[in-house]
């Protein structure tokens, strides 16, 4: 990473995301690849770009304190190589992980849960509480970003005082038309991913990211004001909370029905149907929260950026382009 241009580094990170996702496909981890593609190459690149557009793209000067860092890194890597030299070889079927807990998931989940995508079964039923934690993590991040970035409405005047040139996109016809034709398709696809997660790769998280990406695309092309008109930020906040609550309420209902937390067998009379219903609802909760939090984060960044640009523009230094 000797590049000084943060922009180039971001591009390379996006490539890294794409490549690692491809690697995950080659390693049979299709769900992970799905997520990594949309997160590593999509959302995180997007966020980095917004931030770089605020902070400036160039690193000031290269200043390394390489010796301490090198020492730590070499020590750690030696330890890691030492530790991994004992590990079972790559792909060997008699490694402990393939023989202790996982066989039950592979062999019995069809009878117990009847969801062909075993990763979904593990994620949403066997380890549903981890996934609940995951949703809460993303909710936390959303609230944290809001707490840090929210601009009071007073500070942000609605009419943009700085006379920005009409950006590339305000005048770009081709891309707007193409995007417009794409939107219905993207939403349809997101819905497919959301509800097809039981049978193939996908699920609430991935669908949420796709939804959010479509929405962010809309905001980028048609402006933030238009986007906030479609969904008010306050509504998004509420929906994000609602998603978490929806997920949790499944657990509460199972509690009230006399089962343990997230024991979907108690949702309906038929345990298998109960499992299906439970997984459906919690995936919906995940989807809603992820969509809203991603939109929330991107809006937060963009609004802050606009406020920042306004402040910059007020200064006598060369303001608008």
């Amino acid at each position, binding site marked *: *990473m000797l590049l000084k241009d*943060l922009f180039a580094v971001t591009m390379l*990170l996006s490539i*890294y995301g794409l490549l*690692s996702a491809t*690697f*995950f496909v080659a*390693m*049979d*981890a299709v*769900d*992970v690849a799905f*997520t990594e593609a949309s*997160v*590593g190459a999509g959302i*995180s690149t997007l966020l980095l770009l917004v*931030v770089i557009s*605020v902070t*400036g793209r160039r*690193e*000031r000067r290269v*200043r*390394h*304190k*390489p010796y301490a*860092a090198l020492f*730590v890194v070499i020590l*750690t890597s030696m330890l*890691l*190589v030492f530790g*991994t030299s004992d590990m079972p070889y*790559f*792909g*060997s*079927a008699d490694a402990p*992980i*393939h023989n202790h*807990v*996982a066989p039950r*998931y592979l062999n019995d989940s069809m009878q117990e849960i009847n969801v*062909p995508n*075993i*990763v979904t*079964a593990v*994620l949403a039923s066997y380890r549903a509480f*981890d996934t609940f*934690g*995951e949703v809460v*993590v993303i909710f936390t*991040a959303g609230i*944290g*970003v809001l707490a*840090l970035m929210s601009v009071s409405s007073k500070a942000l005047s609605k009419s943009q005082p700085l006379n920005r040139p009409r950006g590339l996109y305000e005048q770009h016809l081709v891309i707007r038309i193409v995007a417009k034709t794409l939107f219905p398709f993207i939403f349809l696809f997101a819905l497919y991913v959301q509800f097809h997660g039981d*049978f*193939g*790769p996908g699920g609430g*998280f991935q669908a949420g990211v796709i939804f959010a990406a479509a929405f962010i695309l809309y905001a980028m092309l048609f402006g933030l004001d238009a986007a906030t008109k479609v969904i008010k930020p306050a509504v998004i906040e509420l929906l994000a909370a609602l998603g978490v609550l929806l997920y949790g309420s499944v657990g509460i209902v199972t509690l009230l029905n006399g089962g343990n937390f997230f024991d979907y067998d108690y949702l309906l009379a038929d345990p298998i149907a109960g499992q299906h219903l439970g997984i459906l609802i919690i995936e919906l909760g995940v989807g809603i929260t992820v969509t809203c939090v991603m939109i929330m984060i991107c809006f937060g*960044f963009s609004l*802050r*950026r606009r406020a920042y640009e306004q402040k910059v523009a007020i200064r006598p230094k060369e303001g608008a382009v």
Partner: protein
Amino acid sequence: MFIGLANTWVAILLMMIGLYIVIAQGNLIKKIIGLTLFQTSVFIFYISMAKVEGGTAPIFSSDISIYSNPLPHALILTAIVVGISTTALALSLIVRIKEAYGTIEEEEIQGLDEEQD
């Protein structure tokens, strides 16, 4: 021996590059990029261990008998989400730091802080 663990060691190499960037770089955004790299490499490490020779993706199909281990996949899905959440929060901190200090270079920020003391 070398073939059998090559995957793991490549993951370790990537991890260490990431860790080095986090520690050595002075630019806050680059630190975050290093952190992302570090985390993603750990994901690679996890996913590598889930692979079974001859297995396919753990999605049930009646004519397939060997699947890769689904549990690490489920764990890493969670971990990816955790990673992006951390990144988002860190980036929002960076924006605030830029607003408050006017720079995102570690050294300059520390200099500004010492000035104030």
